[in-house]
């Protein structure tokens, strides 16, 4: 069965520091991968998605993610974190037509001033 793991429950970084959030998946077919962000009291917003092509994808708010098939990973990165990035981040995997959409447990990001 498909699954998504996010090994880090909570990460704290200082403002201006770099960030990497880990995501590993298990999927029986070609995975389509997403990162969503949920700010306090807000709905989920798509940061970026990967379907094919260049394995390094750019998203909104300066985020990027790299798909590594050999490692079944889709890690999210940002070179310099801003205080407004404090939120919950969810990695998700789905089938081509949106079936079997599975979310990871989330990683909570705290940003120190």
């Amino acid at each position, binding site marked *: 069965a498909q699954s998504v793991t996010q090994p880090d429950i909570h990460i704290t970084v200082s403002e201006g520091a770099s960030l990497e959030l880990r995501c590993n998946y298990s999927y029986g077919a070609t995975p*389509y991968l*997403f990162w*969503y962000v949920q700010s306090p009291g*807000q*709905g*989920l*917003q*798509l940061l970026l*998605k990967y*379907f094919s092509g260049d394995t390094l994808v750019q998203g909104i708010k300066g985020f990027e993610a790299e798909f590594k098939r050999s490692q079944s990973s889709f890690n999210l990165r940002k070179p310099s974190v801003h205080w407004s990035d404090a939120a919950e981040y*969810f990695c998700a995997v789905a089938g*081509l*037509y*949106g*079936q079997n*959409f*599975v*979310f*990871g*447990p*989330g990683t909570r990001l705290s940003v120190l001033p």
Partner: protein
Amino acid sequence: GAGVSQSPSNKVTEKGKDVELRCDPISGHTALYWYRQSLGQGLEFLIYFQGNSAPDKSGLPSDRFSAERTGGSVSTLTIQRTQQEDSAVYLCASRTSGSHNEQFFGPGTRLTVL
């Protein structure tokens, strides 16, 4: 255009009562999902509607939970005989048909069962 809307935004009910939660997807979106997010937890898939196909109900936790989607648009999630463990935020999402499309989420309904 308008996003996904959900109502009510908050619902407090007593144990044993039935509740109905509503989702209005983005116009033209043929796929609709319901999720449950308990405090500090990730998203738990509940049910998925795609066009006129039979819904994927594999995530519904018990037969107290049901959902329908009328006219391929608005959806209602019904929880019968609510229990305290049903307390959570219920999220709805919609997406267009076809491949490579992400879900757009509503703001959620926070359900509290006393």
